[in-house]
């Protein structure tokens, strides 16, 4: 290979990288993965944001303002439309009701998954159409049992114009004729879910919403923003607190804000992957500086100044970071495309990849910054290399880490845990809190990195014990090798520890929550069965409701003793204390106080009042408050809350504090009547059933199942165990997703182990030569490398489990401030999994270096200096 001649001292940095490609690859891997994740996440976020903006644009079309019950908090009275129309500055208005329903198949069943879900808008066929969709086939609705559906959903469900479809609505199974297919101007759809428009009158009966509207769309006279704002203000005064007036753009932003929390999680894990990347750079450069001691000393004798040496090391880091970042960008785009495909596969509406310039710029900048930060200390050390090192090499340099280092480590860990605690304790995850939390977690990891070298000696001794038992010679050599350079072993194990600690920490939360929820179920469920819509997930957008007739029909079943209705409404702001600030996001939970005590035994604190008295008070209009919300805002029994709904605003006293961790304890309980009067909600979300006797339980289940199968195929009957595992599945799904993200950081640390082992093989070339000359087989040489790898990996695992438990504990202690009743539960399964994963990682990392060591030529190895 002809190389171009070196043209400047700085060219040396390029050359060093070019001639050590394996090291470059292993060192840059962390940056590639970190930058890739950041870039991918940013691109995905931009794409989703774009999708929702487009979707809302085409859904609302020309609409200037939308009047609705505060998000999904109930319906508007029918008079709302007239009041809007008569308001000054309003040119035109139309009103609709919104509902979610399921498509019933030919076999009378509702298919699993979101493909069968249909979002329906009940529109007045006579009113002006503000929407931005076009009818591509057939015609628009005119009246009666007609529906126009979105074309891609129709195609997926093999529905054509002229077909009759059946929908599972609260009023029973409804047959509707498909008169047309529509397409949104943006070309987007609702992901896997469908959308349809049907006549208002039909929708009102089908969804049991007589005399109400869910939304009024307003067209403002005049085009300027000023007049829209003026009309908005006027309507706000007109309707008062319980009604929300928003522009379509603001409504889109609401959805995006909900996604933001999800994005923060993604950024966090991407940041952690990058942090591991920075650590790999740090470790690798430290090793190289030590290895190049003689070379750098030589450069100094030739007249290189200290700053020149520092800069040349940093330049090498910049080049490495740039290379990693560019590769990372490619990976990021692929990742974003993959995630988009994945989200489409789970029927999440998402458009085509939105390429922004911010994503690559931010990703490359963080990548470069990480590389430079990682190389900063090694560069400083390189600058301190004296010219005499040209003669001495690295002889006599293996300094033991000083006690000051340990002290610094301890001093970092303490505030780090406090930061994590704060993150958990915050009731609102503001940017400041997240920054403090992330800074805390990083401080913990830095602290461990500082302390780790002190732990290597004892840990290596203990952890290598089984290996030494199995193979005395190889195990001994491996353990000595890991201990001979505690700084390096520590840094390598720490990089691995980071990912493993995150896994343990996260799953600590998972197992603690699961455990607490299960305990609460055991305490509070006095019911035998629960009926709820399939895929019921309160708090995640509008939910299907239960037909009104069902509770009466079940009541008539011979095995049924109690049927208790439950109505849930997710609200952006829970009712506030009189004179207090706005309440947090939470769940309104309505029940019949006369019946509910028979199916629920949740602990209530009525400040001396008996259970019966509490329920009587609820019946007379008082409310209960979840302990989480009560503790946060200092709400006590007897305080007055302000209930503000689209139908009414009134005050209600707090009858009791409820010991619950559902919805994080952010709940307000009230009677069915109060909910109807204030929020206009009359549809059941869940039914809790009790059989006449324990023996009749299975009879009841069979009878209800038969009833539902025939007439309400969108519903499901769950036993208490099934209800538990339903919650469990949902929780596990989220935590599984997080674990997959942390996997990237763990994967990155794999390259760190390989790098260290390669370095170890190079350093011990002579030693390996001697061993071979003394008759060691290639297999035995391999064993020593694999054993060293195992020792490093196990040290990482032990530290990861310990730190992760501490981290999880701190987070949970913080969380339990907002959600009393959650107690720490160590994730034993995860811990075992982490240990097993570490062993596998250790073995995988050793494959290449071990092969290299085994293939060394004995004679050459012996003459290696």
């Amino acid at each position, binding site marked *: 290979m*002809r190389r171009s001649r070196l043209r400047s001292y700085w060219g040396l940095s390029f050359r060093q990288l070019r*001639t050590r490609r394996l090291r470059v690859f292993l060192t840059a891997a962390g940056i590639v993965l970190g930058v890739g994740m950041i870039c991918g996440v940013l691109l995905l976020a931009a794409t989703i944001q774009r999708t929702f903006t487009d979707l809302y644009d085409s859904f609302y079309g020309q609409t200037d303002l939308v009047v609705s019950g505060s998000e999904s908090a109930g319906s508007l009275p029918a008079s709302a439309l007239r009041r809007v129309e008569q308001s000054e500055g309003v040119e035109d208005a139309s009103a609709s009701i919104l509902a979610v329903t399921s498509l019933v198949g030919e076999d009378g069943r509702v298919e699993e998954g979101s493909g069968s879900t249909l979002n329906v808008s009940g529109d007045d066929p006579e009113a002006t159409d503000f929407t931005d969709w076009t009818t591509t086939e057939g015609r628009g609705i005119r009246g009666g049992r007609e529906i126009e559906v979105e074309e891609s959903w129709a195609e997926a469900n093999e529905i054509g114009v002229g077909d009759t479809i059946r929908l599972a609505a609260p009023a029973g199974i409804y047959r509707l004729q498909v008169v047309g297919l529509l397409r949104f101007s943006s070309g987007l759809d609702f992901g896997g879910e469908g959308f349809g428009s049907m006549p208002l009158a039909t929708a009102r009966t089908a969804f049991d919403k007589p005399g109400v509207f869910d939304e009024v769309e307003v067209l403002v006279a005049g085009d300027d923003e000023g007049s829209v704002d003026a009309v908005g203000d006027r309507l706000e005064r007109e309707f008062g607190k319980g009604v929300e007036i928003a522009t379509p753009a603001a409504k889109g932003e609401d959805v995006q804000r909900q996604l933001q929390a999800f994005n923060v999680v993604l950024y966090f894990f991407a940041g952690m992957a990058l942090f591991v990347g920075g650590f790999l750079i740090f470790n690798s450069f430290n090793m190289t500086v030590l290895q190049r001691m*003689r070379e750098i000393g030589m450069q100094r004798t*030739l*007249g290189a*100044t200290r700053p020149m040496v520092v800069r040349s090391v940093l330049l090498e880091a910049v080049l490495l970071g740039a290379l990693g970042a560019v590769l990372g960008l490619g990976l990021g785009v692929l990742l974003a495309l993959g995630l988009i495909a994945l989200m489409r596969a789970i029927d999440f509406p998402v458009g085509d990849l939105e390429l922004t310039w911010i994503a690559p710029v931010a990703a490359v900048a963080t990548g470069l910054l990480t590389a430079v930060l990682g190389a900063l200390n090694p560069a400083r050390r390189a600058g301190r290399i004296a*010219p005499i090192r040209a003669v001495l090499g690295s002889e006599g340099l293996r300094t033991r880490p000083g006690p000051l280092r340990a002290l610094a480590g301890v001093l970092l860990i303490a505030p780090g845990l406090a930061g994590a605690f704060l993150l958990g304790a915050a009731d609102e995850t503001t940017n400041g809190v997240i920054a403090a939390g992330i800074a805390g977690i990083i401080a913990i990891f830095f602290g461990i990195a500082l302390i780790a070298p002190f732990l290597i000696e004892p840990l290596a001794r203990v952890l290598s014990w089984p290996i030494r038992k199995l193979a005395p010679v190889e195990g001994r050599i491996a353990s000595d090798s890991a201990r001979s350079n505690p700084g390096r072993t520590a840094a390598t194990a720490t990089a691995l520890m980071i990912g493993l600690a995150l896994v343990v920490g996260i799953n600590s939360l998972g197992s603690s929550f699961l455990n607490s929820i299960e305990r609460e179920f055991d305490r509070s469920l006095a019911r035998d069965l629960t009926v709820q819509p399939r895929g019921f997930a309160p708090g995640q957008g509008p939910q299907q409701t239960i037909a009104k007739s069902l509770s009466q029909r079940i009541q008539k079943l011979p095995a049924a003793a109690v049927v208790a209705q439950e109505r849930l409404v997710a609200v952006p702001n829970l009712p506030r204390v009189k004179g207090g600030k706005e309440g947090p996001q939470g769940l309104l939970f309505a029940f019949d106080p006369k019946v509910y005590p028979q199916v629920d035994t949740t602990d209530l604190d009525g400040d001396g009042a008996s259970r019966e008295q509490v329920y009587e008070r609820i019946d007379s209009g008082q409310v209960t408050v979840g302990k989480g919300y009560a503790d946060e805002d200092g709400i006590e029994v007897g305080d007055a809350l302000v209930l503000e709904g689209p139908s009414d605003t009134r005050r209600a006293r707090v009858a009791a504090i409820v010991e619950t961790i559902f919805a994080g304890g952010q709940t307000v309980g009230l009677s069915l009547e109060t909910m109807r009067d204030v929020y206009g909600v009359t549809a059941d979300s869940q039914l809790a059933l009790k059989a006449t006797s324990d023996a009749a339980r299975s009879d009841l289940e069979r009878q209800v199942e038969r009833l539902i199968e025939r007439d309400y195929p969108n519903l499901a009957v769950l036993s208490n165990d099934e209800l538990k595992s339903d919650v469990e599945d949902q929780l596990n799904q989220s935590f599984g997703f997080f674990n997959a993200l942390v996997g990237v950081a763990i994967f990155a640390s794999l390259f760190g182990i390989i790098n260290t082992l390669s370095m170890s093989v190079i350093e011990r070339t002579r030693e390996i030569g001697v061993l071979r000359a003394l008759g060691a087989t290639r297999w035995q040489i391999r064993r020593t490398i694999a054993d060293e790898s195992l020792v490093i990996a196990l040290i990482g695992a032990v530290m990861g489990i310990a730190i992760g438990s501490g981290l999880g504990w701190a987070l949970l202690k913080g969380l339990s401030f907002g959600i009393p009743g959650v107690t720490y539960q160590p994730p034993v399964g995860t811990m075992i999994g982490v240990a097993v994963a570490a062993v596998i990682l250790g073995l995988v990392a050793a494959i290449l270096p071990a092969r290299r060591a085994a293939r060394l030529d004995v004679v050459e190895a012996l003459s290696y200096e």
Partner: protein
Amino acid sequence: MTPAASDGLAPAIEIRGLTKVFGSGQTAVRALDGVDLEIGRGEMVAIMGPSGSGKSTLLHLLGALETPTSGSIALAGRRFDGLDDRELTLLRREGIGFVFQFFNLLPSLTAEENVLLPALIAGLRDEAIAARARALLDRVGLAGRTTHLPSELSGGEQQRVSIARALLMEPALILADEPTGNLDSKSEAQVLELLAELNRDEGHTIVMVTHDPDAAAVAGRVVFMRDGRIESDGLGRGLLDRLRRIREDLPLP
């Protein structure tokens, strides 16, 4: 180019009361113990003495690789003491060329690039200096090896590359610590001849540490050291004879 070019009269090297103590207390080692030495311009001096007598230490102090415990060193009239790290660096860059026992070539650079490295460090990148690097490689008999990596060169060839490198910046002084210590006898003879020629024909001042009387024989002056002191200084008896004999034996490069 040299730091004290204005001072035409001062000797190349002037050492007064030079002492170097390593460590402290019980384990302190007096590596140099009040050495006085003067070396004229254009001299070639061999330093000999038993192991541990302080030869390398003296050379390292001369090259400003280490600082003395007490005493002074002046290079062409310019004293080292009081110079900060940056000034010492510039002094090494422009005034001193080093040849080490282990050749210390950068493994990722070709022979030519290794020779050129001091100029690149000094920020010189013109064609003239590159031409000089090639000329020097030619001068040390490696014209055909310019693009070879150190790993593709023999020990003697590597040492000749390192000599060419030491010469690139035309330093007033060349310091060599056992330059032939790692070479076979043929390479050794070549390297010694090269150093002698540089001294004789081009007037470079050379200070060379060696254990080998044959190597010392090529020098005009031999300094013997023992226990950190100079034991004798001058032309060893019979050395000139040997010097002549070596010259006759050797083919010119």
